[in-house]
């Protein structure tokens, strides 16, 4: 029996990396998006430049469930190295498309799937003159074939090509030819073969399809960042690349000079040092990195905490520990980011769940960092940062002004009554007034230091003074609770026993899983965390339920640990649902895990 369905299946592309497949596969996904069909592509690529297996998985789901689903119903298997694995992993009833240049070995003997062999190599060798283009266009040919198989409007593909090559229309031509070749071949040979179909939908009228790192870069552009120090590391590099691209266009003065300074540093210590130096000096500054960079930035994060220097740090998390799997995703830097550096420290974290939030939280992050005079870490991850996601359009309120926090200008310094102290808590909120270097000829200068200092920024080893400053920093942390974004709470049933807590890229799969469970009669209220420190709302949500599932993508339940220790929750109330193999979590994994836990609870005599 063949798998059937409209706008509801998963297709996987198995390619060799460095062969140009990425753009062809993205073209396919983009075309679906343009048909208004909810789609979520996941690029599963190796930490390598050329010649190793790479997969691209696209989930199409009319209902808008766009977490990873797991499994695949259709595969385009054009990588010999993984052919067997790809073949075996295909869902029963699925479709196996391959290049008929390759004869399938005898042990490829499943009878529960449909083979679709397309002579990709042959078509290209025959029809495409430029031998350099052949390899690349082979990928476009199968996209053309898919268009026919799924019954897609062909024009959406050609339009995508045309807009992609708007500036080099010459290059569009061979692409369109390749598309047509594939389409026609499929039309001729596989007329009614595929029962998986795509239909134009109206689900996505306003939406955009963007990766999180691009959105983060736009957040930095709109948030007014003028200095970035950085060091290349997957999966954060593209944040800076995009920031560079956007600022090269939107941050030039009339003479073409730049209103931004982007410096590739020699390492991550320097990258954060640059951002701190600039922030100290009154510019909005940031850096972007991933786990290994966070580890290296520990010392500077402690300095920033204690000397109270604002900075925005983007952590695009990947699979740790150590070098781990550099091209796989995880949410596993949470504990380290929350308490980075020796001594008593605590850092503000924001958890975007889609590109729109990447944009907003990055832009807001600068306000927050300057308001609180402390580092703000945006906890993105590889899945969010490097994969395309559908989200609502980014918007900017043109009446918005930047909140630069408590900064005294020349005039304010002069009209102060009483002696100004950099670390005096005038307002009782734990946040003090700072000055930028050079503000005034006589007033407001001080030495910033990571060593112990008194309210007037003078070095001190007096134990009471030290303690006073540390207690005030604790007060500031309380103030932060009122400023970080509130959790997104959904109370389906105000009397429900169960709640689920999740954040970031675990969101989509969690919602889907909870919907599934809901349809089985298990009602679970949800709370999506958006920031740390946690507000009272977070504790209240947990308190109102009997059992809370904390869903996260790491081994040790790091967010659960944070919730317990920061909100004073009874540990047995928080049940960990973890997923940490480096691939994005699936709804199935979550719903299955919850079901098992509930079963076990029931067996132990606990009422549902």
């Amino acid at each position: 029996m063949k798998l059937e369905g409209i706008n509801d299946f998963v297709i996987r592309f198995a390619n060799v990396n460095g062969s140009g497949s990425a753009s062809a596969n993205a073209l396919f996904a983009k075309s679906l998006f343009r048909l208004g069909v909810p789609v979520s592509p996941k690029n599963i690529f190796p930490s390598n430049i050329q010649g190793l297996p790479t997969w691209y998985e696209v989930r199409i789901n009319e209902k808008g469930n766009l977490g990873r689903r797991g499994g695949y119903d259709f595969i385009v298997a054009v990588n010999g190295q993984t052919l067997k694995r790809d073949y075996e992993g295909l869902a029963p009833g699925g479709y196996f498309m391959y290049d008929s240049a390759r004869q399938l070995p005898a042990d490829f003997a499943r009878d529960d799937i449909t083979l679709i062999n397309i002579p990709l190599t042959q078509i290209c060798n025959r029809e495409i003159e430029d031998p350099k283009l052949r390899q690349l266009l082979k990928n476009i040919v199968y996209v053309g074939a898919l268009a026919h198989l799924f019954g897609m409007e062909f024009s959406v593909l050609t339009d995508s090509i045309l807009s992609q090559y708007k500036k080099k229309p010459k290059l569009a031509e061979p692409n369109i030819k390749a598309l047509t070749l594939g389409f026609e071949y499929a039309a001729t040979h596989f007329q009614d073969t595929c029962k998986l179909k795509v239909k134009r939908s109206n689900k996505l009228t306003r939406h955009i399809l963007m990766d999180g790192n691009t959105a983060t870069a736009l957040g930095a552009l709109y948030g007014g960042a003028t200095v970035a120090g950085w060091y290349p590391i997957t999966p954060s590099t593209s944040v800076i690349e995009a920031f560079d691209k956007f600022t090269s266009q939107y941050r030039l003065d009339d003479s073409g000079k730049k209103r931004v300074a982007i410096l590739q540093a020699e390492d991550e210590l320097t990258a954060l040092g640059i951002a701190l130096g600039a922030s100290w000096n009154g510019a909005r500054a940031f850096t972007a990195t991933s786990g290994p960079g966070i580890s290296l930035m520990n010392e500077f994060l402690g300095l920033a905490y204690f000397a109270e220097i604002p900075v925005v740090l983007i952590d695009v998390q990947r699979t740790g520990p150590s070098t781990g799997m550099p091209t796989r995703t995880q949410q596993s830097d949470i504990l380290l980011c929350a308490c980075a550096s020796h001594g008593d420290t605590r850092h503000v974290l924001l958890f975007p769940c889609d590109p729109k939030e990447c944009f907003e939280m990055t832009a807001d992050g600068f306000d927050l960092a300057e308001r609180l005079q402390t580092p703000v870490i945006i906890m993105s991850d590889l899945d969010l940062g490097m994969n395309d996601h559908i989200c609502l359009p980014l918007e900017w309120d043109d009446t918005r002004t930047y909140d630069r926090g408590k900064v005294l200008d020349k005039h304010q310094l002069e009209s102060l009554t009483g002696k100004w102290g950099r670390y005096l808590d005038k307002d009782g909120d734990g946040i003090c007034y700072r000055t930028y270097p050079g503000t005034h000829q006589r007033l407001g200068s001080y030495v910033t230091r990571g060593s112990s200092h008194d309210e007037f920024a003078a070095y001190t080893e007096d134990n009471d003074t030290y303690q006073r400053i540390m207690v005030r920093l604790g007060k500031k942390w309380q103030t932060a609770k009122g400023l970080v974004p509130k959790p997104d709470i959904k109370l389906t049933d105000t009397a429900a026993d169960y709640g689920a807590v999740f954040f970031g890229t675990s969101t989509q799969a969690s919602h889907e899983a909870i919907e599934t469970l809901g349809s089985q009669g298990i009602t679970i209220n949800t709370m999506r965390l958006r920031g740390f420190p946690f507000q009272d709302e977070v504790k209240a949500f947990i308190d109102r339920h009997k059992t809370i599932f904390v869903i996260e993508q790491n081994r040790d339940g790091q967010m659960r640990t944070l919730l317990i220790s920061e909100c004073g929750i009874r540990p047995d109330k928080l049940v960990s649902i973890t997923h940490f193999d480096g691939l994005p979590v699936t709804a199935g994994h979550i719903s299955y895990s919850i079901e098992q836990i509930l079963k076990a609870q029931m067996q132990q005599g606990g009422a549902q």
Partner: protein
Amino acid sequence: MSSTRPGFRHPDLPKNDLGYTRRDYEGAASTLCAGCGHDSISNAIINACYELALEPSGIAKMSGIGCSSKTPAYFLGKSHGFNSVHGRMPSIATGADMANRDLVYIGVSGDGDTASIGMGQFIHVVRRNLNMVYIVMNNGCYGLTKGQDSATADRGSAGKKGRQSLFESIDLCELAIAIGAGFVARGFSGDKEQLVPLLKAAITHKGFALVDVISPCVTFNNTTTSTKSYQWVRDHMEATATFDFIPPRKEITTQYEKGTTQSVTLHDGGVIHLHKSDGSVDITQRRPAIDALELYREKGRLLTGILHINESLKDTHDILETVETPLNSLAEKELCPGNQVLQQIIETYR
């Protein structure tokens, strides 16, 4: 613990072009050991800034960690300072400079702070040609942690503990020239006559200026067996060439004999006149400049003075082609492209 010196001002104190007295450039009282070379360097910095008539609030003082890195508290009390973490001052200075190109950046570091933990950042701030003065208060040891050898300690040199340093010393000046620094000088904390003009020239130079100052640690490394002691340095120092530094807009009154003096014009119009002695090298070229350092190293002598100067290099801002306005003074309207542009941008993601 750090107290400010009394604010009383004598009406008759001499004033510089901006109307400031030398006191306006002083800082809190030093807590270093009596006789520490670093205090002399602080004084030289005060003198240089006073004599150059720099606006004190237009200077930013940057440092790492160490006895040396404490000194920014002891000079230029009207300037902002940043006493950062060990070995990482260059990155902080880089960020600061990116944010506001209009301030004068004076960085102070130790030989431990620079040549050990900070070596990577040091090399790379040189490579970026950041517009700053980078002063190494070089005592060949770790003063603040009680006298361990630093990487600039000469092999065989021995401090208070009597143990000889085991490894070859690193010459920061030679490294800086090799990496492409445009201004490299070496001074001695005991020689104010040479040091103050060196600092003035360094401050006036646009781009990265290294001033490596041998600065004896009286507590741990001023022994007769140490090559960073007052005595050893006095006995072994030689200068590349004497020089006059003429700030911009000052009339040049002296006439120099042709051929014996080479003049280098600084970006703001100041001029350095180098008075060549016999066999002296052309320090405006890096090749002979490095060779001279190697030669003196071979001879076991300490070469001081301006070791290399090249006024033709672009600094970081010029290389990056940033605007003239300090980036920290740009406001929303120059920074934020607005919603209309945003809508255009996201249209390409549809």
